[in-house]
């Protein structure tokens, strides 16, 4: 079970993290708890894997070059191909999705040439064609994710 403090930290501090000398103390002050409690709660959330980090979300394509890539992989090869692709350090997300384009991953490279080279390598090693889908415009302002701790949805199809 999440404590009230953990819920507040998860929901209310996804953006505008204090850029001050002692940010955790500032947050503690806002929440009426001690700095040690804030640090312990964040340690625990990180340890449990609910928080990936307290840190930045870096804008895509402003640093280096990135692109979404889709592939069509036969079900019997999916695991093997996915593992091969995940093994590239330039790959950050790699998901199976319900579609005939069933493997979707994000490539991040130093520049466009590097990106193309990694993609060519992946195509060669898998013998499969990849569809390169670079971002052309980002309409999101990334306010973080509004978490709903109360409502549980049980419609049986999750």
């Amino acid at each position: 079970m999440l404590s009230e403090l953990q819920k507040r930290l998860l929901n209310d501090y996804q953006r505008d993290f204090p850029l001050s000398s002692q940010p955790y103390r500032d947050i503690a002050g806002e929440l009426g708890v001690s700095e040690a409690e804030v640090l312990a709660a964040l340690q625990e959330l990180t340890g449990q894997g609910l928080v990936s980090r307290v840190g930045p979300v870096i804008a895509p394509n402003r640093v280096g070059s990135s692109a979404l890539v889709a592939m069509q992989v036969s079900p019997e090869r999916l695991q093997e191909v996915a593992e091969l692709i995940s093994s590239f350090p330039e790959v950050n997300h790699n998901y199976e999705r319900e579609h005939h384009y069933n493997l979707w991953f994000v490539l991040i490279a130093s520049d466009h040439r590097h990106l193309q080279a990694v993609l060519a390598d992946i195509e060669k090693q898998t013998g499969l064609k990849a569809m390169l889908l670079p971002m052309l415009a980002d309409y999101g302002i990334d306010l973080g994710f509004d978490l709903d701790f109360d409502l549980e949805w049980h419609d049986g199809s999750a």
Partner: protein
Amino acid sequence: MDPLDRRLLEAIQQGLPLTARPYAAIAAQLGMREGEVIERLERLRRQGLIKRLGVVVRHRPLGYSANAMIVLDVPDRLVAQIGGHISRFSFVSLCYRRPRCGEQWPYNLYCMIHGKSRGRVLQQLEQLSESCGLGTFPREVLFSRRCFKQRGALYRASLVRGHADG
């Protein structure tokens, strides 16, 4: 962005230390002053290179197991307007324009909805569709199945060093 900005982003991309003075710790690591680290981060945030700074949650373990990528084929002249409208919904986590890829893949607008169930995500999609007038545009909904790899974007200063030395 200068080389120090890059080193700074590299140093904090996997998270700030959970210690009383995290920026001082990063500064010590980079041979900078704490104040300089804070000023640079303020600027990078203002410039939009850092989209946000804070707690980055993992959706799946928090119960948001239904994750749908919605792809739409909308007229090019409307894509920015529709994209802007879609991204205002708090349950939409990303909204990007991407190139079409032939007849096989005519889609040019992508957005992501994370929800606690498939039914809930489809409900939110209907809400989005009505409010943004998406009804007539071809679209597909791609729910995620397995996650093979997920980690924050990793930028290495040694990788992101421009062309001069590599």
